[in-house]
């Protein structure tokens, strides 16, 4: 039975189909799913396409930001309120990928993909999920990513997070060997709110350093309550690898990822990246 496409109107209907049919997957932009079909990796099952406008909603002007899961990287780039997310959005493929690649698809993209998700993780994002027949519920992105490998997460309707306070509070770095559109060796996102010159509530996230984007909690602990000086940065670099589990793939070896991560983290914290 070849792959089927089913068009449904509402999110709840789509979520119910996802819950009852293990072969069903939501179609986001399709940059990964259609590629899987082209390559013969996906030969059966159902792609669900929903036209629910909730997926394209963008609420970006206030302190609380909400982005529909169907929002594309190009839509993020076209939105001035989201300038702090432009670097991770611009890092995803070329322009013709970015017009198609959605935030929702990025949340499920296998490592080394997931650069935008890495940024969302450092923003302490939550996801609004429709799983099964029970309606919507909100879950921290970190928890959703931990559940991702098991499958059956459900349908993500949107992501929400607080807008970072200042221009320099949020930083993102993608390390790739091919510019401007190579796949990540790794990516790092850092949210560094300060209170009286000291970091308070730091969030550091890595992409391509584990099976899914992950928080660098040891680094966050090092940064907490300290000013961002050379000694703090050196201590952060020492803690950089804790909890990481990088893979060897066509882009880089596990060894290489471990070698370069502390260097790039140090540069990002020191504001030395362009």
């Amino acid at each position, binding site marked *: *039975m*070849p*792959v*089927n*496409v089913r*068009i449904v109107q509402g999110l709840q209907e789509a979520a119910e189909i996802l819950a009852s049919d293990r072969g069903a997957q939501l*179609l986001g*932009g*399709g*940059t990964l799913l*259609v*590629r899987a*079909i*082209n*390559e013969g990796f996906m030969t059966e099952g159902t*792609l669900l*396409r929903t036209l629910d406008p909730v997926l394209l909603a963008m609420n970006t002007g206030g302190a609380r930001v909400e982005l529909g899961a169907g929002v594309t990287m*190009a839509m993020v780039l076209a939105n001035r309120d989201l300038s702090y997310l432009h670097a991770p959005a611009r890092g995803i*493929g*070329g*322009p*013709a*990928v970015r*017009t*198609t690649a959605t935030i929702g698809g990025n949340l499920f993209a296998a490592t080394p993909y997931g650069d935008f998700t890495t940024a969302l993780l450092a923003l302490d994002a939550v996801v609004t999920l429709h799983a099964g027949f029970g309606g919507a519920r909100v879950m921290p992105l970190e928890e959703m990513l931990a559940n991702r490998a098991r499958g059956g997460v459900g349908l993500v309707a949107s992501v929400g997070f607080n807008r970072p306070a200042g221009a320099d509070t949020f930083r993102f770095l993608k390390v790739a060997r091919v510019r*401007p*559109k190579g796949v990540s060796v790794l990516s790092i996102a850092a949210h560094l709110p300060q209170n009286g010159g000291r970091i308070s509530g730091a969030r550091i996230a890595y992409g391509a350093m584990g099976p899914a984007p992950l928080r660098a909690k040891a680094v966050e602990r090092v940064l907490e309550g300290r000013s961002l000086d050379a000694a703090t940065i050196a201590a952060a670099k020492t803690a950089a690898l804790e909890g990481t589990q990088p893979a060897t793939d066509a882009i880089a070896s596990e060894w290489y990822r471990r070698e370069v991560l502390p260097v790039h983290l140090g540069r990002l914290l020191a504001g030395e990246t362009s």
Partner: protein
Amino acid sequence: MARMPVQFRLNGSDRAVFAEPTETLLVTIRRGLGDFAPKFGCGQGTCGVCTVLVDGEPRLGCLTLSVTCEGRSIETASGLADGPTLHPLQAAFMEHFAAQCGFCTPGMLMAAKALLDRNPNPTRVEVVEAIAGNICRCTGYEPIIIAILAAAQQRGARRA
């Protein structure tokens, strides 16, 4: 699986087709509608030879399902020339030797058109970024960048 009806505009003409559910826009345009300008290269989103415009935005024909294009306006390189008059981008590509084997050219032209339609006066960096998803194995890219900048200049001169 039953074929699905899809209607869209292709280079200004209304077209109606029946497409397999997972048929890509590239296959529909080439096999179904006989427009062979967009090419099939990798089928993975990495080479850009299948680039077309969907409602003015660059999209990869090989990764776009036709059924998602209902009611959209599609442009390919076949629609660029106005009768015997080449589009400024096509003329600039010819003038500046930006096509050698020509396999990447339809995709490059559409990526460039998407840029110039949105940003008529791009910088070199913006041109490089606009064609970052398009691979050319022949030219070394420089003639293509020069051609796109020249076309922008020429279009600007025409408007002035």
